[in-house]
């Protein structure tokens, strides 16, 4: 017995592969109740009873080995290429017991690839409720493959599954399904000889997919092309013939092993729910009401925890200043790092709530219904109903959302979705909005229950979605493509969200936020603090001299002198010089040089904005007076005019800028990775910057 075994989880979308993966490995791979949650392979480890290390590979779901979208291509790649680092010793087919017929199509294809197989018959809990009798042993006998009934969500049958894996055979013993060779005899023979393949179905699959298989050489590809011309091979006709033959086999198997009595119970419930949730009028009303409730709650529920966190940081700074020795290092720690961190950590409650709500939407199956309702609208602007998933996900973070566009089959629809997703207000913008809104929007209730601040926040979100849709519409006219898009999508049954899953999502989002944002913020804060505390040549000495002059000493109190000196020093520091240098170009937007510094530091990540503000105002401020960032910013005055820096006009202008500008390196990197062309991230960066500037300009000029 080998001490290492690699298994791959393969199956239709939404059958519970990732749930099984998590149960086996103890990891927290994302699970959701809609097709296309997993879009890339994920690897985890587990131990079997005989101490074999089990390497588990979670794969994207697919209805057949013929890929319809980018995410699905990986499945055949991994299964057919023996040299692929994830090529499994054993395939675990995850089949949804409530929908065996469609699920077995993929099984028959994989069976014919000639790999050892185990079938995990998942969702047995639902199958039991649905008046459907599955003869599990009969099925196993018919196919000559171990079949393990499980309910992964309840972790039922996982031990039996592990046992089956432990005692699996190294040989593919499954009963042959259909006669492959008859589909294209000559071509299969030629390809088998050319590529030295001993399995006819692998050869046939290659005949269909050779153009997209990365492991084939150029010479091999052109050779296959020649064969196909020679034998007059028609890919679609061959696929159609194959599929029909496979379903004949499946119908035969199911006739003996599954008895249907009536329609599934759960489905009836789902039907009833859908009657309201996708209703002609109520459907959209409910959708908007849900979004509205989410934003109101994010604002309302996070208020108290935010207040607590804010106070903890103020207290920490106080303690720090009291007990640490005075000096440069203490200043760096408290005015630089701590101030920067406090600015952002305050937003942990809001981010956790946002992620929790999105995870509930995904977990219930509602997301698919939104996709269904929105397809018509989305199509009008060059998108696909499926674009809704990345766009709603974009409310949390654009990076995973852009990856999730892999499920969109049509290239043009996918590119447009990628291009507009970063416009959707992500969680990194939330701190900026919240902070600025709290500065300029009064906290009052309209109509007795609508929080005006929440309303302002929600309008920003709505605006971001409208902007995304408008930009998509413009791009629809610019990007050229002939391929027609389509929308053939499974609607999963509704499920209760699993609260521990929601909890994990919250926890993970906070953890990533704290570590990712934390790292950047600490680094930027330190650099910024240095740049703000030192200046070019002897400018600082001159300022010191100036404030030592007797005439000034007489004119101002000592406290005032300290304050004046600090702000003049900041203005003349490296950071100040940098900010001043871009001030002319951002003045029409209502920004001063300090905001200019923040724009520069948050160029790579928006999270840094609040931290920068915090650092700048700490360096500038009165070290003996402890205030939160918000209080400091509220009191900020323009050094020349003496007027407040953050007015309704400048704050909203600033929010516009952050709403539209790219300001996110990770997004640009992922767009490059997904499109494999530097052109797209660059176009995206440019158009977003132009939009940001124009929008800020208009808003400032109108409100000022």
């Amino acid at each position, binding site marked *: 017995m080998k001490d290492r075994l690699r298994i791959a989880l393969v199956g239709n979308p939404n059958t519970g592969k990732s749930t099984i993966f998590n149960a086996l490995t103890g990891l927290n791979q994302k699970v959701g109740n809609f097709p296309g949650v997993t879009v890339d392979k994920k690897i985890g480890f587990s131990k079997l009873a005989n101490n074999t290390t089990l390497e588990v590979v979670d794969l994207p779901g697919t209805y057949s080995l013929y890929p319809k979208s980018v995410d699905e291509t990986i499945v055949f790649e991994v299964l057919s290429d023996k040299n692929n680092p994830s090529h499994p010793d054993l395939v675990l087919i995850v089949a949804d017991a*409530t929908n065996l017929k*469609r699920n077995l199509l993929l099984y028959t294809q994989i069976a014919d690839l000639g790999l050892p197989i185990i079938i995990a018959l998942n969702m047995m809990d639902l199958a039991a409720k649905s008046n459907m009798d599955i003869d599990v042993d009969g099925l196993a006998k018919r196919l000559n493959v171990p079949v393990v009934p499980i309910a992964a969500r309840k972790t039922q049958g996982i031990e039996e599954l592990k046992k089956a894996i432990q005692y699996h055979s190294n040989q593919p013993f499954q009963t042959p399904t259909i006669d492959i060779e008859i589909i294209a005899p000559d071509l299969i023979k030629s390809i088998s000889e050319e590529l030295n393949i001993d399995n006819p179905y692998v050869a046939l699959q290659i005949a269909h997919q050779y153009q997209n298989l990365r492991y084939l050489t150029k010479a091999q590809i052109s050779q296959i092309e020649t064969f196909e011309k020679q034998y007059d091979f028609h890919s679609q006709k061959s696929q*159609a013939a194959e599929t029909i033959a496979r379903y004949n086999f499946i119908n035969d198997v199911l006739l003996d092993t599954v008895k249907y009595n009536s329609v599934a119970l759960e*489905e009836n419930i789902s039907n009833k729910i*859908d009657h309201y949730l996708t209703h002609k009028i109520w459907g959209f009303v409910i959708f908007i009401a849900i979004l509205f409730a989410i934003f109101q709650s994010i604002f309302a529920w996070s208020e108290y925890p935010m207040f607590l966190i804010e106070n903890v940081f103020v207290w920490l700074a106080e303690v720090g200043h009291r007990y640490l020795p005075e000096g440069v290092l203490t200043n760096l720690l408290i005015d630089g790092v701590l101030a920067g961190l406090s600015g952002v950590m305050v937003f942990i409650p809001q981010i956790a709530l946002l992620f929790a709500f999105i995870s509930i939407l995904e977990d219930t199956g509602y997301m698919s219904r939104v996709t269904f309702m929105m397809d*018509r609208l989305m199509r009008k602007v060059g998108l696909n109903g499926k674009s809704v998933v990345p766009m709603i996900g974009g409310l949390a973070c654009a990076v995973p959302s852009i990856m999730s566009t892999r499920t969109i089959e049509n290239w043009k629809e996918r590119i447009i979705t990628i291009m507009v997703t970063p416009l959707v207000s992500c969680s990194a913008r939330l701190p900026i909005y919240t902070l600025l809104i709290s500065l300029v929007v009064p906290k009052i209730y309209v109509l007795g229950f609508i929080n005006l601040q929440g309303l302002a926040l929600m309008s920003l979100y709505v605006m971001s979605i409208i902007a995304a849709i408008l930009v998509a519409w413009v791009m629809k006219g610019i990007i050229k493509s002939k391929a027609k898009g*389509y929308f053939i*999508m499974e609607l999963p049954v509704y499920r209760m969200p699993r609260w521990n899953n929601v909890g994990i999502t919250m926890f993970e989002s906070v953890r990533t936020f704290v570590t990712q944002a934390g790292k950047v913020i600490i680094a930027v804060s330190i650099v910024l603090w240095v740049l703000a505390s030192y200046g070019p040549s002897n400018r600082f000495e001159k300022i010191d001299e100036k404030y030592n002059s007797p005439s000034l000493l007489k004119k101002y109190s000592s406290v005032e002198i300290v304050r004046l000196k600090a702000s003049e020093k900041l203005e003349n520091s490296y950071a100040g010089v940098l900010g001043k240098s871009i001030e002319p170009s951002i003045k029409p937007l209502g920004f001063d040089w300090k905001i200019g510094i923040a724009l520069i530091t948050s160029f790579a990540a928006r999270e840094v904005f609040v931290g920068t503000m915090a650092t700048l105002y700490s360096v500038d401020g009165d070290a003996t007076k402890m205030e939160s960032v918000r209080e400091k910013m509220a009191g900020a005055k323009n050094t020349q005019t003496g007027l407040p820096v953050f007015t309704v006009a400048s704050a909203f202008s600033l929010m516009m800028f952050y709403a539209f500008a790219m300001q996110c390196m990770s997004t640009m990197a992922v767009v490059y990775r997904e499109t494999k062309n530097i052109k797209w991230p660059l176009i995206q960066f440019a158009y977003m910057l132009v939009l940001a500037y124009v929008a800020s300009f208009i808003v400032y000029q109108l409100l000022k």
Partner: protein
Amino acid sequence: MKLSQLKIGAIGIIKEFTDLEMSVKLMEMGCLPGETIKVERVAPFGDPIAISVSGYQLSLRKLEASTIELI
């Protein structure tokens, strides 16, 4: 009759497909000649539609549904 012409709640049986490319995709999703189809609902803007087929719900656009010929 085409699937796209079926009213909500109505039932039909698939006879054949009029578009080869679409037929491959639809068959993989369980829409096969001889299968019974029921139109469950229509999206708020009249398109796409949701149907029940081989024990689950599938949504597809009217245009795609029009390539399915019913008995």
